[in-house]
């Protein structure tokens, strides 16, 4: 069992990226790896409720479901949220300063970036 960090750095405007990342995180969980998820840069925009399109709503549900499926944590950069004046709408998201990202990276064996 490995510790896998899934890092989202892009906004939902490139919807494929977030879908690939969510698929990857779910697969790692299904294979009993430990998964930590983090959102930095434009990736924090994935945590904000936008327009009411089905695709965005589904993505929000899938991100929220990562905790239900066993992800150890969902963390978002408080600096990146603040800079964009955003408040995450996805439940269970812990905020961390960007300065804590190195500790997050050190706590996992592998990082995949989307």
């Amino acid at each position: 069992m490995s510790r896998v960090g899934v890092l989202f750095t892009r906004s939902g405007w490139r919807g494929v990226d977030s879908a690939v990342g969510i698929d990857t995180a779910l697969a790692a969980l299904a294979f009993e790896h430990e998964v930590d998820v983090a959102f930095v840069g434009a990736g924090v925009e994935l945590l904000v409720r936008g327009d009411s399109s089905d695709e965005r709503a589904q993505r929000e549900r899938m991100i929220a479901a990562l905790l239900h499926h066993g992800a150890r944590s969902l963390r978002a950069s408080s600096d990146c949220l603040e800079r964009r004046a955003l408040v995450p709408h996805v439940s269970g998201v812990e905020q961390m300063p960007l300065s804590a990202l190195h500790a997050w990276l050190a706590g996992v064996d592998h990082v995949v970036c989307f």
Partner: protein
Amino acid sequence: MRFSLFIQDSPDSGAAVASALAFAIAVIDAGHAIRQVFFHGDGVRCARPGADADHDLRALTALAARHDIPLLACSSWLEKLGIMPTGPIRAGSLGQWCEALDDSERVVSFRA
């Protein structure tokens, strides 16, 4: 050290494959090994017929053949994009990538 590479974009959309190739050469030259190269998302376009017209992709597949490195493209994305792989990149599952995690000390992801 054993590495696995995770490629998320095709040569058409950026430098992901070129970067992965340069990294793979450096890894092998330094005496390390590559456990698996996995293509996901748009990266599975590397498996479409004719994709090896790209110099970097052709060099990557040749390197993989020389060092017996599995090249796998996510079967779900192949199906989603309507691609039937015919070359050295075979269809594989995210499960095979997940299994490779335990045999790899590091996964490095590449995208455009």
